[in-house]
């Protein structure tokens, strides 16, 4: 059963990934320059990096280890599922994988690409 706790764990990891993407884009000279030309300020990179560290401490250490291990191979370590398709590798998930019957203590991962699945039913 995907209970509230599972949702919370997935939310935490997803938000961590959102922050990391934001940092990567702010570090990318071209993206940064384009945003600044539009009139936005991106001066708070240090603040954002500090927020990332603070957030990492909010994540369950076990989940964080899984996330970091996958993130080494795939910058997007956690991906959504749509119509039983993993949006990391675009492969259909086998019927044996089912959020309704999954072990709530284990993060669901894609058998094909290994990414964590943001999938709730």
């Amino acid at each position, binding site marked *: 059963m995907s209970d509230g706790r599972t949702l919370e764990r997935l*939310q935490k990891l*997803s*938000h961590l*990934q*959102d*922050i990391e*993407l*934001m940092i990567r*884009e*702010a570090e990318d000279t071209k*993206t940064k320059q*384009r*945003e600044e030309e*539009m*009139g*936005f*300020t*991106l*001066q*708070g*990179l240090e*603040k*954002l990096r500090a*927020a990332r560290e603070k957030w990492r401490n909010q994540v369950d250490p076990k989940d964080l280890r899984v996330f970091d291990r996958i993130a080494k191979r795939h910058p*997007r370590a*956690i*991906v*959504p599922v*749509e119509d039983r398709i993993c949006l990391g590798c675009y492969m259909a998930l086998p019927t044996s994988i089912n959020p309704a019957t999954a072990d709530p203590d284990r993060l669901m991962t894609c058998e094909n690409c290994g990414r964590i699945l*943001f999938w709730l039913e």
Partner: protein
Amino acid sequence: MAEPSRILNYVDERFFVRDLRAKSKDGVLKELAEYLSQDKDVRDATLVLEMLRKRESLGSTAIGSGVAIPHGRTLAIASIKVLFARHQKGIDFESPDGAPVHLFFAIVAPPQDRNNEYLPLLGTIAELVKEKKVRGMLMKAATFADLRQILEGWGDE
């Protein structure tokens, strides 16, 4: 100017907010995330809100002249969405010119968008609201139809 009418591909009636009620910057972000979460392509309002908050910590998305464009990418979104919202009284949004913000365009995008629409779209909106006349019309828009007319009618001149 790039066609402002293409903004209409990402905004619809539910995303036209005449009067925001919030009384603070964070309150506005919360309200924007709530409105956005009415769409089925928005998987999680909490994640949208947290992303918008983090983006503000990188630097205010207010660009002066009473306009802010909160924006960013999040896993919680399946496709790009644009929301227009207005605050009659104005909100302190840490704008570079110190002026209160009345006009908001929120843009949220998935981590990857296949056709790379996100940054050009952001640019189109930022450019559009630099026009004083447009800001004046946006302040007066009473319905989504008015917004549509402004976006369709601008940019060809």
